[in-house]
């Protein structure tokens, strides 16, 4: 394990930024967000960014290809380019776990090349959560906020940043800043891990369990009468899906420009009425069906297709951001019954 004094952090950032684009969480209007590090940019102390770190691999919008059309002719332009190396610093345990969930979608055959090339070029430096929020429930999904995954795991104390490489990519990055880091025992880290674990136990949502959910539960929950009330005031907006680190549904659309047609992919939401709309009808005609889809997908369908893994990481963003404060915790508690309370 290596450590670096917080007063030297800017130097470390400068060294990293020599070889790769470096993104760190930065405070700003509307909350923290990942921003490109430059001289003078300070790291946020916020627990989490408003938008999740999925943006780095699955951006809100990206051009897939372009077309030129003339008369009856079409030219297909594959303008994919090698992505640049980049480092994301300060990703929390929940968001790091979300990459694994996204990988199972985008890296399964046929591999999504846009996602894959970003994954290949990105180095993740995770950061343990010193002050988890009341909305956190990552423990429910077996995530350890005290010991996040990633290429490098970092722990921040009052004075120092402790760094431990978990992968080859991480080793390489650590060696790039070895001149300003020093070897250390992990005592301070062990101490912090204990503190974090103790807080995790005290969190109000620490008793939420997934016991009642998972693969093979479609029949049990699909026709539950509880969906009516749970969904009854859903606005049908896409806030929960767009701030969610694991929501990965997308739309493909064409944008006509003077030069031709740009085919782009953008985030889509199963909460939207046109998500499943076809010329002759809609398989999910009301908000109830759309609402049910989102939660069934996270709690049952995804586990069905992914060895029981859930597609929620308990980051709590939807709890904070839903305009009507409806969220997966309320769904789990209602569907799962009293034992979940």
């Amino acid at each position: 394990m290596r450590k670096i004094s917080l007063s030297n952090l800017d130097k470390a950032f400068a060294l990293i930024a020599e070889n790769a684009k470096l993104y760190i969480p930065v405070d700003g209007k509307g909350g923290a967000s990942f921003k490109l590090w430059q001289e003078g940019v300070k790291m946020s102390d916020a627990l989490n960014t408003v938008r999740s770190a999925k943006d780095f691999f699955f951006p809100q919008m990206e051009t897939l290809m372009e077309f030129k059309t003339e008369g009856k002719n079409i030219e297909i332009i594959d303008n994919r380019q090698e992505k640049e190396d980049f480092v994301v610093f300060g990703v929390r345990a929940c968001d790091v776990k979300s990459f694994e969930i996204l990988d199972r979608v985008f890296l399964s055959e046929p591999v999504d090349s846009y996602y894959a090339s970003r994954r290949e070029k990105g180095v993740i430096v995770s950061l343990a959560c010193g002050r988890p929020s009341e909305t956190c429930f990552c423990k429910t999904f077996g995530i350890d906020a005290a010991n996040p995954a990633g290429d490098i795991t970092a722990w921040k104390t009052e004075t120092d940043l402790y760094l431990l490489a978990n992968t080859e990519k991480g080793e390489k990055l650590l060696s790039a800043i070895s001149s300003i880091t020093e070897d250390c025992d992990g005592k301070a880290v062990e101490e912090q891990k204990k503190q974090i674990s103790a807080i995790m136990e005290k969190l109000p949502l620490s008793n939420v369990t997934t016991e009642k959910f998972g693969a093979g539960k479609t029949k049990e929950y699909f026709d539950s009468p509880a969906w009516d009330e749970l969904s009854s005031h859903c606005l049908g907006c896409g806030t929960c899906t767009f701030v969610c680190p694991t929501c990965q549904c997308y739309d493909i659309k064409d944008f006509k420009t003077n030069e031709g047609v740009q085919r782009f992919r953008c985030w889509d939401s199963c909460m939207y009425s046109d998500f499943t709309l076809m010329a002759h009808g809609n398989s999910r005609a009301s908000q109830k069906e759309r609402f049910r889809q989102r939660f069934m997908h996270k709690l049952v369908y995804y586990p069905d297709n992914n060895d029981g893994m859930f597609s929620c990481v308990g980051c709590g963003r939807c709890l904070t951001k839903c305009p009507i404060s409806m969220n997966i915790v309320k769904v789990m508690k209602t569907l799962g019954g009293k034992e979940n309370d």
Partner: protein
Amino acid sequence: MQKITREVLIAKAEELLSNGTVSKVLGLKKGEFSYDQTPAVFTDIESMKKDFVFDDFSGANFSKYLIKETKKGEGKTLVFLKPCDTYSFNQLLTEHRFDREKVYVVGIACDGMVDIKKIKNAFGDGIVSVDATTDTLKVETLYDGVKEIAKAEVLAERCRNCKSKKHVAYDELIGEDGEVISSNRFDQVDELEKMTADERFAFWQNELSRCIRCNACRDVCPACTCEKCVFDNPNSGVQNKAAANSFEEQMFHIIRAFHVAGRCTDCGECSRVCPQQIPLHLLNRKFIKDINGFYGDYQAGEEVGNRAPLVNYTKEDLEPSEAVNKGDK
């Protein structure tokens, strides 16, 4: 002013449910924490006593939910409306969005709602409980124990600039009614107007660049009640879920602001729900300020049936050229 509490409202609901005036109550249900509340319909007093909540976090504007709620089943829906909500209520009636006869409005006085975002800005994450029974909030966090903050400091943006304590619609009132009050709600608009065009453009570009096109502002807006929004219509040519370029983001918000101009009551729901904290209400306030300046003071929703200046014609109306000149200053 009578303090409106959960108990007062439950007692009123019990009376109206038991004497058959209403068959259901549209209200808020308590959530996981001391501040998160979800709209819910209660049909019996027992479930209300168990789950109904009303406190300083009960800021949501209920008017729009009435469109859907009044279409369900027989009987009247009881709804408790704050003064600001009643303006949206009237505006929706003006636009024939629901049947007035299917609603029973109990007007409740309001001395402002608090914004959990502001509490979190002050104390950070890890809020265990918030006691908002007095004008000094007691906030307990996981990390710093109990701390105090004045309610005035964490008032929701729209309450900080409250425009009226008067109910413009109700079947009955709890307590006495207030008055339309003067507010400083156009101060920020003034500041924006004082900027140069470039500065203003930069301001909005920065704000709107955070937009994730979740549509929460539109979906919660009581003035946005089109059955099919142009931005949801595949045939409109503007239905894009993410902007292919920055112009489109601006277009979505500007078109929306234009569309609700003269109908927006300045209820502030758009800014309340924005996950990116974009001050969307400022776009609408600019329109309100201009309409007031061009046509004389006009408050949408003040009276059912009022014709907004933009859809009304009088010989005294401003000529377009004058509006352009005035807007240019």
